């Protein structure tokens, strides 16, 4: 017997935890599942945690950024970024609640602006778990 949330409940879970004021964070190390070992670029490098901004739920049981997000302008070399996190706080170093590996690692040099195009940050629940209810 298949298990899982209904798509409407899954969407409700996502939208209640990820809002326009959820912050995008970047890490150069592989975080643990508790959110520790999340190494963010230095504040003096221009790094900030950026609000994700408007969201869309155009695909059932998924949430995505509805506008391009310019994360920060690197004032100095920030090395290789491999992971992304989401947090409720914009305080650098405070706990993240969700961590993920980037599709491709990024080398962020001085003068670069990591950005996320519309619909390129997608968070969802496994479709196979939702199939009986989709």
């Amino acid at each position: 017997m298949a298990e899982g949330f209904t798509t409407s409940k899954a969407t409700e879970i996502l939208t209640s935890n990820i809002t326009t004021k959820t912050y995008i964070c970047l890490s150069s190390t592989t975080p643990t599942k508790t959110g520790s070992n999340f190494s963010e670029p230095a504040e003096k490098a221009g790094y900030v945690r950026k609000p994700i901004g408007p969201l869309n739920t155009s695909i059932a049981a998924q949430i995505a950024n509805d506008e391009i997000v310019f994360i920060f302008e690197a004032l100095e070399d920030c090395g290789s970024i491999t992971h992304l996190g989401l947090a409720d706080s914009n305080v650098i170093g405070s706990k993240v609640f969700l961590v993920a590996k980037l599709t491709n690692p990024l080398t962020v040099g001085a003068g670069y602006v990591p950005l996320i195009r519309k619909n390129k940050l997608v968070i969802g629940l496994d479709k196979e778990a939702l199939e009986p209810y989709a």
Partner: protein
Amino acid sequence: MRKITAYMGLFRGDGAEPPRESGYERVCLGEVEILDIPALPVREQIVFGDVTAPGWGLVSGFWVFDQAEGGGPLYIWGLPEPVNVHEGTIPVIYQGRLLLGIDVSANIILESANTAETIT
């Protein structure tokens, strides 16, 4: 007030736009008032496409056109220093400056609906 369909382009030190075969094309900004053109680079976040080989070279400024290709520019801005727009970047006119964007993407699927512990 006269309106035009505005297109933002870039120019290099040689006075030419970057080559189309390296991913360059003018960005359509839609209908704008002629008198609003000077504020466009500051008011809008203008994102160009991905730069492919061999890159776009040293970009020296921006132009506004009223057509997608050809024609003469209606307005020009020079950069304080040229910017080397190389392959793999996404040129962005952001608050009046030309920055090099790099793409971040992540597809986060939480495995099974009963726990967030397994993340791919």
